[in-house]
Every structure is written in C-alpha cells, then in structure tokens.
C-alpha cells in the first residue's frame, strides 16, 4: 500500500520537475520586466528593424517554399521512380543537419569565394551578407519541414481519385488543382505553419551566411543575441514576441490536425509535429 503510494508520488514528482523546467525560462521572460514596459521596448529602433527584416525575409522565403515545394512534392509523391526513397531522404537531410553546417555550406556554394561565387560576381551580384542571403538561409533550413509534410499529404491521397479525375476528362493540371491540392490542403497548411515557425526562429545559418547587420540582415533571433549584453530588456521583449508567435503557430498546427482527423473521409494524415 505504502509502496504503491510512493511510486505514484515519484511519478508525479518527475512530471512536475519536467513541466517546471520547460516552463520556467518562458515565464521568466515575462516576469522579469512588467508586461507594459516589455512591449514598450518593442518600439525601439532595433526591435522594429528586426521585426521588419524577419517578416520580409521569412515571408519571401515562405512564398518561395510554397511555390517551388508544392509541385516538387507532388511529383515526388505521385511518381514511382528509381531512387525515390533516396530523394525523400535527401530532402529530409537538412532537418537533422546542424544549422552551422547549413551556414558554412551556403557560404561555400553562394559566397564570394564559393562554388557559384565567381558566376554571381560576373553578373555583378553579391549574395552573402545581404537580405537575399537571409532569404536563402531561411529557405534552406525551413523548406524540408514543408516538403516532407507535403510529400506525405500527397501520398495519402487515394490514387483512384486521381485516376477517376483523368477518366472524367480532366488533364494532369486540372487534376492537380481540383483534386490533389484541395485534398492535401490541410496537410499542406500544417506543413507551411511548421516551416514558418522554423524560419522565423532561424539563427545559425543566417548569422554565418548573412551576418547580423541591423536593418539589413538582423532578424529577431539575431537581434536577441546582439542585444543581450547591450540592453537586456530589449532582448527580453523580442524573446517575449517570439514566444507568443511560436505558441500561436503551435496552436494552429494542433487545430489543423484535429480538424483533419474529425472531418476527413479519406485520411490525409498530418505528420507528427516536432519530429526533427
């Protein structure tokens, strides 16, 4: 009897420790400085610059990811070709890659002394340490989150539906837009939310490839890093903003997957969150 109670107590203790440990840093951000003052700090020049750079770079990166990633995922998902499993693994590789490796790789490919650097030089284009570099770094790190989810969502569509569309007189393009895209829609939205979250928090690859120039390449994450020994309150305010954005995205993904489960007749499962 006592032993059983002891065991239950031990389990509860472990759960409390884990939760407190995970929540404490987040709470600390909001508790150290009064909320009103915290949000006043967001009006500072550094903060506004960082928000603008982040929104612009992440927005453009996200648009590129959707525009290129969706058709690419559809092709990979709907064609059986040799080396397909290899291609899917390749797409997932950046997920497990340390961001610093992504940064050095981007420099080696697109930097001034990199693989394509001389080509860009001839065209009079320099990429590294510009906003274009931020977009590339964010796209590189965030796109696998979308691609992976998009491939899974397209694969989950009953192939008979696509065949049926063709026999009903619709060509491949009409089949894609009228059948595949709507049926994969919820999964694609969840994937987009995940890649957006990853993109907005991008740090390692960006600081190596794009640097941390205020108003040019300094995103929110980089600004936190730059500010924490200059003005800790500004760093805290930026942190608070990112906590709220991240929480909102997580909630969105959860809602989308719950909605998918409850309304779908032919399932297009949303891959587990946080699988990287």
């Amino acid at each position: 009897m006592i032993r059983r109670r002891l065991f239950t107590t031990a389990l509860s203790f472990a759960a409390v420790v884990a939760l407190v440990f995970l929540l404490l840093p987040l709470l600390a951000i909001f508790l150290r400085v009064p909320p009103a003052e915290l949000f006043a700090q967001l009006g500072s020049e550094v903060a506004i610059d960082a928000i603008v750079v982040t929104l612009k770079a992440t927005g453009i990166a996200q648009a590129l990811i959707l525009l290129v990633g969706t058709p690419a995922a559809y092709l990979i998902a709907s064609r059986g070709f040799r080396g397909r499993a290899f291609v899917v693994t390749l797409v997932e590789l950046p997920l497990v890659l340390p961001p610093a490796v992504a940064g050095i790789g981007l420099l080696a490919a697109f930097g001034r002394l990199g693989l394509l650097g001389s080509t860009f030089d001839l065209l009079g284009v320099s990429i590294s340490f510009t906003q274009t570099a931020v977009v590339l770094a964010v796209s590189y790190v965030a796109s696998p989150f979308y691609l992976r989810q998009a491939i899974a969502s397209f694969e989950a569509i009953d192939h008979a539906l696509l065949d049926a569309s063709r026999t009903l007189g619709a060509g491949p393009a009409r089949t894609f837009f009228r059948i595949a895209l709507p049926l994969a829609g919820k999964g694609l939205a969840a994937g987009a939310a995940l890649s957006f979250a990853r993109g907005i928090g991008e740090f390692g690859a960006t600081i190596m490839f794009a640097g941390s120039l205020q108003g040019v390449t300094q995103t929110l994450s980089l600004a936190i890093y730059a500010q924490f020994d200059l003005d800790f309150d500004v760093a805290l305010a930026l942190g608070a903003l990112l906590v709220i954005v991240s929480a909102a995205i997580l909630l969105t993904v959860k809602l989308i997957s719950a909605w998918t489960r409850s309304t779908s007749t032919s399932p297009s499962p949303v891959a587990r969150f946080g699988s990287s």
Partner: protein
Amino acid sequence: MDTLDFDFTLPRRSFRLELALAVGRETFALVGPSGAGKTSVLRAVAGLVRPARGRIALGGRVLFDAAAGIDLPPEERRVGFVFQEYALFPHMTVEKNVAYAGRTRAADVLERFRIGHLAKSRPGELSGGERQRVGLARALARNPSVLLLDEPLSALDPHTRASVRAELRTILDRLDVPVLLVTHDFQDAAVLADRVGVLIDGRLLQTGAPTELIASPADAFVASFTGANLLTGCALLGPDGLTQVTLADGNLLYSVDGAKGLVDIAVDPWEISIAREPHDDSALNHVRGPITSLVHIGNRARVQIGTLVAEVTRQSIDRLDLKQGDVVVASFKAAATRLVARRPGIESASCGAEQRAGADAGRWATAARAPREH
C-alpha cells in the same frame, strides 16, 4: 458500330496478361479470382496503364496502338470508369462530382439516376447503394463510348447487394454502349452480363453466356468457379446409356453426360440432399461419409461430407437432428451432374485399372474442390 476491340499484352509482376476480346453493345463480364489481372484489363482500356504490345480500338477510334505509337491519355479516350470503391471526390457534393465530368447538365443526370435529392450531400454521408448510383451517374455524365466497371458490387453489404444488383442490370440494359465489367463473383456476372469470360493468370479460359459456362465448363476451374462441387474420377459408358464414373475411393457415380477417361464431375451444392439412410428415390448417386462441418447461413445450411458440399434447408437439418460427426448419405440425381473432361496432363495417365484397385484408400483423395465461399 461501337465495338470495343482489343488485343494486348501487359506484363504484370507474376504473369503476363494476354488478352484479345471484342465487346459489342452488350455487357461482358470478366470473372476470375483476385490477382488474375481483371482490373489491369480495365486500366489498360482506360489508359491508366500502358500495355507492352497490342492495339485497343473503340468503334473507329484507335485508343492505343503500340506499333503505330498511338497512346491517347485517359482524358481523351471517352471511357466511363466506375471504380471499385467508386472513388467519389470526398471534398465535393454529389452534384459537383457529377458536374466534374461536365458534358451534360448535372441536374439532368441526377434526375435520370433518381439521386436528385442527394445533390447537396457529400459522398461520406451516402449509403453504399447511393454511392454506387452516384459513381455510375458520374461515369455516364460524359456520354462515354464504353463503360468499365471494377467490382461494382463488392463494396456493398450483403443486404443491399441483391437489390442493387438487379437495379444495375436494368441500368446496363438501357445503355447503348459496350459495357465491360470485372468481378470475382460468378453469380454477379451471371445476373449482370450477357457474356462471361473466365480470366485466370492473365489468360481467358472460356467465354460464353453464363448458362453455357455452368452447363459446359471448359475445365475444372471454370466448373468450381461457377460454384459447383468437383470430384475427379474415371468415366466409361455403362450398359444403360448412363456414364459410370469410378472415383479414387471406389465409389461409383452416374451421370447423364457422355464422357470417357479422366473427368471431373460437377454438381451444384443445392442439388444434393442429405439423409441418414439412402432414400428409395430416383437419385442414383449416394455418397456415405461423416459430416466434417456444418455451417448455418440464414435459413440454409452448408453441410460438408468429405470434400462434397451440400446446401440444404435449416428445417431438414433440424428434422434429422444432424450434427458434426454424424454419418450420412448424400444423394444426387444423375441428371444433376455434369462431366468435364480433364485437360490432358500428368494425371490423365492414372485413369485405369489401378484406380479400382486403390478402392480401399477410403477417403476422397481426389482432386475434388470445394466451391468458393462468397
């Protein structure tokens, strides 16, 4: 006129599908066990899979010709395809599903199939029978030149199946285009089709009207596929004009069919009656043995005696108080049997004297097969 005419080879994983067939304004059913390549035939006609060799034509139009390099994409073939689970678009209403094909007004088509009241429903809300009607309506909305149906009844539960089957027959009869359907169920084929082809391992074994196939199956598989019992034995013409067939276990059976040598005797389960002692009736064939299994299906019962399956009413089981293990006599008339000559093979050599000598083998050690369960 509008004839579907094809002759092609399609390599599958474990066999080659090799088929030549002409379907006029009729309903043709391809029947066969799962994995026989039935669905692949439909997919090839629809353009969803590409044969390695051959030609597919519909009326005067060539849909596919490997030699001439013609391969029309599915959307240009004007083929109506009803998929096995109907493949209705789950994110569209019934009306939108039917309008997707687009040639005729969706409302007219819905009315013709008496599904106007379902126009605003989603496929997920429909019953099996309703889904089938929507699937048919959608496939026919483009006025296709041929209608293909993949296992049109397999997605239905047994209660609705019979009524939907009759309804489907009426719809198919009114069409004036070739209809090619595939099913693993011979009874479905017999009800729906004018002609039936038995497809096994990618080859057409026999083609004919359903009654022809039942009456004179080309071989043992076709006979067993139509639902009949099959017992193998050695046939010779008896003095009374009946054919005597000696089974491996020494039992002697009689048939009105004429045949010689190694044969399969086919007899339908419902032609067999069961009693504790042989009746003093007109049945010539009696087989004694213990009941190895007894399964009730509604008001009927399937009784297995050795490899022989009889289908009798529940009342007669109750009246005789039969249970598993009881020794009974299964009786059937000579006129209820059909003899099917065995295709020449290794076994044909064994038909002769040694069969009578091996009479004390005692069991049905022959190649008899139980009918398929559905």
